[in-house]
């Protein structure tokens, strides 16, 4: 069966997940327990969190086949629309230094799209229903709020 050669071995997914989880716990602790932890500004944990997410999306699935490849392609396409939207918003609002927070959002959006599509199929991308729009908006709000809570000093 067709194999995706450019991907990391599957266990990198767990390493990436572990790294991201640690950073997430650190950020939560920073926000709710001790605001004066070592990494001021939370740039370093945010960067490591992104690195963990990149490991997750760059590693093979348990069974890597052509269906997974197709889902990956659709997820990339859809995420790129969000990427272009973020660039336009930045241009209009003149925001600077927002690269890291946008990268975090894009990686999370990609992961959500990929795994949702893997379970449910790609039909919802071509013809999204009310449920997809509703859940999409809720997730968008959660991501925006969590960005402010977790990674802002």
């Amino acid at each position: 069966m067709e194999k995706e050669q450019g991907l990391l071995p599957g266990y990198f997914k767990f390493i990436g997940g572990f790294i991201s989880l640690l950073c997430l716990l650190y950020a939560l602790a920073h926000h709710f327990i001790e605001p004066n932890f070592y990494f001021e500004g939370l740039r370093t944990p945010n960067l490591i969190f992104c690195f963990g997410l990149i490991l997750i999306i760059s590693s093979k699935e348990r069974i890597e086949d052509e269906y997974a490849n197709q889902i990956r392609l659709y997820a990339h396409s859809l995420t790129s629309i969000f990427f272009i939207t973020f660039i336009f918003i930045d241009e209009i609002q003149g925001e600077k230094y927002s690269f890291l927070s946008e990268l975090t959002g894009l990686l999370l959006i990609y992961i959500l799209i990929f795994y949702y599509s893997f379970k449910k199929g790609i039909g919802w991308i071509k013809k999204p229903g009310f449920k997809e729009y509703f859940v999409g908006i809720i997730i968008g709000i959660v991501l925006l709020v969590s960005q402010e809570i977790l990674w802002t000093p």
Partner: protein
Amino acid sequence: MISNTLKVERARISITQKDLAKEIGVSRQTIHSIETGKFTPSVELALKLASFFGLSVEELFQLEKS
């Protein structure tokens, strides 16, 4: 549009999606998406599926006339 009789053939020999996926070397989601018409398999995968059921590709997959 391509339709298929994968579900019928699977029921004929009483094999689950999970077991079929294991035999062919793909994920269960792949078999499910082929059965529901959400995913059109490659020639290689179609040949493997047809071979597993002892059929020709044309018997397992049909081109629907629109």
